[in-house]
């Protein structure tokens, strides 16, 4: 057992956890933030993506105890109160989700993607969006409307 403290969605949390506890389990089981999903066991599907210190990471392959003092944002912390993040709005506007299971990871990846390109001054094209989604699998949408959603939000972020 190790005590780990971090800021999750702006709140300081502290828990004693077994050393092998994954961040995804820490969020889902210890904090009951069940918006972060686990869709595979090989770090391929990206349903578990959250932001750690402003960067997208796969929480299913991150040890919770390695994140002492980290700033973690999950899908539950993305909106500003009742006001949704432009990416959340864009996924609704463009029908970028169906069953919703991959959606939290898709949105967290997409927010990181757009922010990175903006910070680097690079233009995000639909081809680049498809390449950037390499680590996120969706089985429902065929990606068409996910790419459209990200293009739409990119123009508004």
């Amino acid at each position, binding site marked *: 057992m190790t005590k780990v403290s971090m800021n999750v969605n702006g709140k300081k949390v502290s828990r004693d956890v077994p050393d092998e506890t994954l961040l995804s389990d820490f969020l889902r089981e210890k904090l009951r933030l069940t918006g972060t999903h686990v869709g595979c066991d090989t770090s391929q599907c990206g349903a578990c993506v959250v932001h750690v210190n402003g960067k997208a990471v796969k929480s299913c392959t991150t040890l919770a105890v390695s994140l002492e003092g980290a700033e973690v944002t999950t899908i539950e912390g993305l909106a500003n109160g009742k006001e949704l993040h432009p990416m959340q709005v864009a996924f*609704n506007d463009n029908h970028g989700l169906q069953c919703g299971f991959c*959606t939290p990871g898709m949105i967290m990846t997409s927010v990181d993607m757009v922010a990175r390109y903006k910070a680097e001054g690079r233009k995000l094209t639909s081809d680049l969006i498809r390449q950037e989604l390499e680590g996120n699998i969706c089985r429902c949408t065929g990606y068409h409307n996910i790419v459209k959603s990200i293009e739409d939000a990119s123009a508004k972020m």
Partner: protein
Amino acid sequence: MTTGIGNPVKRKEDRRFTTGRGRYTDDVRNDNQAYAAFVRSPHAHARVKSIDTKAALAMEGVIDVLNGKQLTGDGIGNLICGWAISSKDGSPMNMGAWSALATEKVRYVGDAVAVVIAETQALARIAAEAVEVDYETLPVAASLTAAMAKGAPQIHDNAPGNLIYDWGLGDEAAADAGLKAAKHVTTLDLTNNRLSPNPMEPRSAVASYDAAEEHYTLYTTSQNPHVARLVLSAFYNVAPEHKLRVIAPDVGGGFGSKIYIYPEEITCLWASMKTNRSVKWTSDRSEAFLTDMHGRDHVTTAQMGFDENGKITGFKVDTIANLGAYMSLFSSSVPTYLYAPLMSGQYDIQNIYCNVRAVYTNTVPVDAYRGAGRPEAAYLVERMMETAARELNMDPAELRRRNFVQSFPHQTPVLMAYDAGDFPKLLDMAQKSADVAGFPARKAEAAKRGKLRGLGYSTFIEACGLAPSKAAGSLGAGVGLWESAEVRVNPVGSIEVLTGSHSHGQGHETTFAQIVAERFDIPVENVSIVHGDTDKVQFGMGTYGSRSAPVGMSAVVKAMDKVEAKVKKIAAHALEASEDDLVIEGGAVKVKGTDKQMLWHEVGLAAYTAHNLPDGMEPGLKETAFFDPVNFSFPSGAFICEVEVDPDTGVTEIVQFVAADDFGTIINPMIVEGQVHGGVAQGIGQAMMEQVVYDDNGQLLTGSYMDYTMPRAADLPFYKVSHQVTPSPNNPLGVKGCGEAGAIGAPPAVINAITDAIGNNHLNMPATAHAVWQAIRAGKSAMAAE
């Protein structure tokens, strides 16, 4: 009205999903939660000699370890297949025994023999590793070839030669005569590759037992919770129906794989009673590959004959279907009644015969996966048409046009009576959208860049909303195929619709609300859709086979008919008008040509205050209905795929994908297009990427996303989707169903395009770069040899 039928209303359910507030089964955690882990066979075929649980039981935090003998000893019944198919000689299908926890023998890698219940999931898994099972391994038949070989290992004692049934549909003599009379006969040998459905949410079950009430509650990843309750109760003897509540909350995709009742749900329910704890099991992805039902897996030989004008004279099909180690719930119907009746395609074919043999192998069971039988039929028929056109040196579109069914209803020789359509016009629409006229120029331009460009068609038919119950029953179905609905108008005028359909991505909370908003002219926000809970919804058959619109919505319409009749009686009485003079519009019930009206919510309130109702009328305003369709609905599609192949590497890019569909009436075009996108993506996945592989020992080689290729964003194009509407006369809304079309129509369009590009018709799915490269080389050496 902008929220009624035909409008792209944004989804009402999205807010909870985009903010992480969806509630899936694994999100449920009860106060006394314990966790299950299954001890699974590492062998594809073995006798279970003994199970030693001492070490596992001794571990701190392990609550119990339970096995199959205890399970059957408590009277839990074997898993069943719910559709009885008889062989041609009249003998019943050879259904082998399948216990949720194997007792004597294991028959595939992953077959469960015991379950560990522990305080945490991690501990349960560690303890499961500590259970020692002594196996006596047996020879394995992991493929159709091995299972059908002389002297093959016998997987079930009651299925000699591993044959489950040898079934036929159509007139064999007529098909033979049609082929004999043909000017040209095209022969094809095809395989339809084995797939894993892979909804992104792994299966999960949370079972609780209330000893005081002797009552069970099961949260489960199900497409049809009422069917789960029925089967768990009537066949598996877990609990009587009134002592069992099944809840399928948010479900993260199904594609058929969550129709069935699996060993894990049965075991968790039973274990919750044995341990007096709430028992949760959630699959990981590796376990999902091992234990979720697979799809497809056919080997087929077929001949189609043509006269001198290119008209089809006869079609004969011989298919072998791999059903895996056990007969899953609807497995028997998939390669029979969901396959052979589709052999007429969009074509007027008088002479058809289809023979199907279903065979056991030492692999996970095979059952319905998106399309279920219809993709296998469309792949065969559409590759046949394209191949024949090449052999006859005809334009493949023209060959199809010469054979299209022209008038409706159309009775085929294989059971089906097509409802409505316009196949030539649909093909026109697709050809225009794909700019087929400009293809030769694009091909020439690609050649300059060293690329091989090809174009492939697929003009396919499907059958949705499996029906009617009486006919299905006569063909062996064990359940009815109707749907139920309840429409409750509350005293404040808001409406709740309780439906037996289940949404796991289809957007029912929006589309079902749209048909109510349209009917009563109220805001879509004032309508809520309730589904997925056997304690709330009276009954239902759930969602599969693109049935939610043609069957589920029709039940809602029928209930709304009754509501409207009562609303008019209440208003007519209050307004002292004739019911015939009333219209429902603008949030009110109005007397035509006057300014007299009753606001919608005033009618609701009147129904519940019951102060001024017609004499003898019962208070309240809620109605229920069951809808049993008179026939299937028959969506049709014309898909055109265009590819570019790099001849040096075999790398293939889909440069254009056109999908023109006829789904009848469209409730929400945005959602329908989303269904087409997703279906086409899965069809492209089957055609180019996906393949379940077992080795000769029955070990699964594609057990994770490192080995099984899931289509990713960069593998897929944007899709050009368009619609034609010929309403189905078989249901009140004229809808046909849209969930499976993409997965049915896409594979042959893709393979027809690639084979067109490379000039070699011998190419099986999945057409990976390696397979395409080999086909290019084989084609070249064949030409050199000629």
